[in-house]
């Protein structure tokens, strides 16, 4: 019951402070423009005057695969960046401002305090991603062909899992840090480490970034899988939340 009360407060906070609007707007813009860019970028290139015929011939004919690739790329960059920006202050700022101390002297357990924040961020990103996904699907269908719904849902589910990885890791950084600035530094360092290791050959197959290519392949009818990366991503989420709780439980706020 207390969890639902605190979750409701967190969601209201995201709504009233316009965070929900910002995340939904940015993601929707990238959702809508991904198929548009995929479709019209090659055509725009062809309209540039004096493009040699040989070069023009190299510009590929846009396809549904380009639309999906553009969508995955945009979500992988801007979605992850938003996840960091929206999460890095959630605990550190409350400790810095004194609201954490104020609330923890009322019947809000430290576990509830952290989990409600994680859940509210997860809901905000899930709803924003859903809106973006609908926009992307609509324009992809309009400009190319309709993507099969099931695999397309699976793609978005995997994108959400990657967002949750970054949200949970950033939440841990925010719990470890005393100030928002320190939390931001830690979160960006974590992003660089995860993305850096994820880009290494072979090792990268086990990292969350691999879920993007798996999702794209699924949406386009491919059969490849990346279950180890999926399992490791869920493991990172669980580990980050558990460590955050263990740290926060001992922390003096």
């Amino acid at each position, binding site marked *: 019951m*207390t969890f639902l*009360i*605190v979750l409701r*407060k967190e969601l209201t*906070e995201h709504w*009233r*402070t316009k965070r929900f609007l910002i995340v939904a707007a940015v993601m929707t813009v990238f959702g809508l423009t991904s198929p548009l860019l995929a479709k019209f970028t090659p055509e725009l290139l062809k309209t540039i005057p004096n493009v040699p015929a040989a070069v023009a011939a190299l510009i590929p004919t846009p396809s549904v695969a380009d639309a999906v690739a553009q969508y995955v790329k945009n979500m992988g960059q801007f979605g992850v960046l938003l996840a960091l920006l929206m999460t890095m202050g959630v605990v550190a700022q409350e400790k810095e*401002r*004194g*609201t954490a*101390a*104020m609330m*923890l*002297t*009322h*019947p*809000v*357990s430290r576990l509830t305090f952290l989990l409600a924040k994680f859940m509210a961020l997860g809901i905000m990103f899930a709803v924003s991603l859903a809106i973006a996904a609908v926009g992307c699907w609509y324009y992809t269908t309009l400009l190319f062909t309709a993507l099969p719904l099931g695999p397309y849902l699976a793609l978005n589910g995997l994108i959400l899992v990657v967002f949750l990885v970054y949200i949970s890791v950033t939440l841990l950084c925010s719990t470890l840090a005393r100030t928002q600035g320190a939390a931001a530094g830690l979160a960006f360092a974590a992003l660089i480490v995860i993305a850096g290791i994820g880009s290494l050959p072979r090792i990268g197959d086990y990292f969350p970034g691999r879920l993007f290519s798996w999702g794209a392949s699924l949406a386009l009818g491919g059969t490849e899988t990346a279950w180890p990366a999926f399992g490791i991503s869920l493991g990172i989420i669980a580990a980050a939340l558990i460590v955050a709780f263990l740290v926060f439980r001992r922390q*003096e*706020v």
Partner: protein
Amino acid sequence: MIQTENLHKHYGAVHALDGLNMTVETGTVFGFLGPNGSGKTTTLRILTGLARPTSGRASVAGLDLASDGRSLSRRIGFLPEEPAFYPWMTPREFLDYLGRLHGLSPLERSARTKELLELVNLVEAGKRRIGGFSKGMRQRLGMAAALVHRPEVLLLDEPVSALDPVGRKEVLELIETLGGQCTVLMSSHILADVERVCSVVGIIAKGRMIVQSPREALMERYAQPVFEAEAADKPSARRWADTLRVQPWAAAVSVTGDVLRVTVKDIALARRELLASAVAQQVVLRRYEETRPSLEDVFMQLVDKEAAQ
């Protein structure tokens, strides 16, 4: 009831609390006094569960903080020195939110919110965002927040420090009325406020309780007679103070502007010699009186003594 036994809190080499022993009986309004850095806020943070002691025991409302700390929040109300709120909320929403957390029904929440906003004089600001509130308004809202669930124990850290004289008077009257209904532990550096509302006083210095006693008993035990005199000008006040400081019957002499405050050990001797000394120094007096010693005199005397040790 609040009790601490040999409570220690170390931050590295700094001993914020150094074996604090304190007992606050149920229903009393306890004034917790001490100079800056003496350990008042640390004590309150430990009693609320926000900080952990390095060693020692503490219990609040019959709950041992080490073992029953989880149920503590339903029994206590806490007002930090600088209460913090969610700036996007209104006071009504904030009090309603706390009411929900404490399990109050919608009807109870509505009635309690209205009652508390009236109590802390924030009815008109009830629908404004807290983000635009002054420090005083925040302190009053913090007081209301601490009272939402009618706690058994109220822990107040400098509860009137940000208030204007009218707000201070109102909040002090409120604290005074709470005595008997709940146990109040109030830290303050404004001694006149403590003297006004607290029935029991504890003085802490260097993390240790140097004295704890009912206020009147404390005054009787430690208060030494005080004479106050106002000189015609500051130089003569200072000159006279210098001659008084070496007198064996004078315990302490302080000068504020052209006003001297002389604490004496032997009142009969002082009565005879003080005015004679003024005449000898050719000090023209505007006012001269034997006053009732204040809590501040006792506080200064005890803290100075502790510092000298």
